[in-house]
């Protein structure tokens, strides 16, 4: 009888330890593998800007938005399409313009034949071309964490 109780106690102790170890292991594994977070009531797929720089529990960084402005779309085929390369930290993206045109130097007649005095500029239409300096757009921005509810 005494021996049977002893076996039961040992079995109970072993089962308890196994439950505790396995339980801790599964909880840790669950957290590490992205255990379902509490339902905060935000719909799946929602993209929100969140102050503080960190996405809330249960939300993840939306990489599509990093360094980009978001433009609204209402047709499914337009969703997720991107234009341009993302901005860096507080980057004021610059741009430039090519230009070309002409300067016309109208003639002024002189009573003389062509000769060796080259002090005067030839009457002609001169092409000019170049590129402007690069400048920013002057637009005001605010960089803030973009998060999506999976």
């Amino acid at each position, binding site marked *: 009888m005494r021996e049977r109780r002893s076996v039961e106690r040992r079995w*109970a102790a072993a089962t308890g330890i196994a*439950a505790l170890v*396995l339980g801790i292991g599964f909880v840790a594994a669950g957290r590490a593998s992205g255990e379902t977070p509490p339902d905060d*009531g*935000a*719909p799946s*797929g*929602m993209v*929100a800007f969140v102050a*503080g720089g960190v996405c*809330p529990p249960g939300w993840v960084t939306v990489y*599509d*938005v990093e*360094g980009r*402005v*978001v*433009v*609204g*779309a*209402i047709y*499914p085929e*337009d*969703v*997720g399409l991107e*234009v*341009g*390369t*993302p*901005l860096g930290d*507080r980057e004021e993206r*610059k741009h430039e*313009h090519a*230009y*070309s*045109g*002409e*300067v016309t*130097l109208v*003639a*002024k*007649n002189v009573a*003389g034949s*062509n*000769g060796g005095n*080259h*002090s*005067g*500029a*030839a*009457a002609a239409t001169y092409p000019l071309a170049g*590129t402007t*300096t690069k*400048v*920013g*757009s002057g*637009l005001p921005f*605010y*960089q*803030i*964490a973009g998060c999506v509810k999976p």
Partner: protein
Amino acid sequence: MKTRKTLASLLLCSLVGCLDTQGSGTGGPIVTNPNPDPDPDPQEPLRGDALPTGAVSFFKKLACPEGWKAYEPAAGRTLVAASETFPRGEAVGEPLASLEERMHSHALAVTVELPAVSYVGAPGGGNAGVGKAGPVEFATTSAPASAEIPYVQLLACLKTAEPVPRATPLPPRMLMFFDLKECPSGWKPAEGTAGRLLVGLPKYAPADRPFGGDPFTSPALRSHAHAFASTLETPSHGIGLASGCCGDGYAKDDTYTFAAATEPSEVDVPMLALLQCEKE
């Protein structure tokens, strides 16, 4: 025996997770509805979401969720937090077409003064090889270019259904646009973002930082100008006359460098101003 059953159930619970009241097995918190269905189906998950009616949000989805509808005023536009001087509902610019890079160009105009030389001879006659001194104008329009503001297109939706709050509230500090006059209960006006284009935080960058120009204080587009410089190098035209009195007013052969600024031009980033609120 009782001890054995208890410990066995503890082991089982550790392995499979304890069932919650909805039988989902997630062990998650109990979802509560402030306006409970008088005849609820315990197997049916709670429908609807916690966002207030009138919320306007972007979605990384192909269709708006249940209780939301496509928000056409935001199509082809970015949303900007409204202010007293840039009131909600104000739309700026024409909407972008899908993947459109909105271009702009600048007018350029500059006058170059060419100094005079003179010949020992009389003006007039039949030789038209030399140019006239004085101002010459260079006027053109630049090639169009984009301001290169990178963007991503996301689905814009308006919440039409009543909110269905959960036991766990929406995250504090999340910003949301609203097609409303005032922030809903539990939300306060967003600070620091008014009149600024929101950009997703670049990797490793500090959060919540304004940059670029001053915030929009009116629905007017923002304009900018560029500097430009060029060189006019004239070839000479030889005349068989000595330099001197009194045939003057002929342009001097030289290299002329000039610099100026383009006319200002607007960068047309189409916007819609809406009330923006922060979850308390």
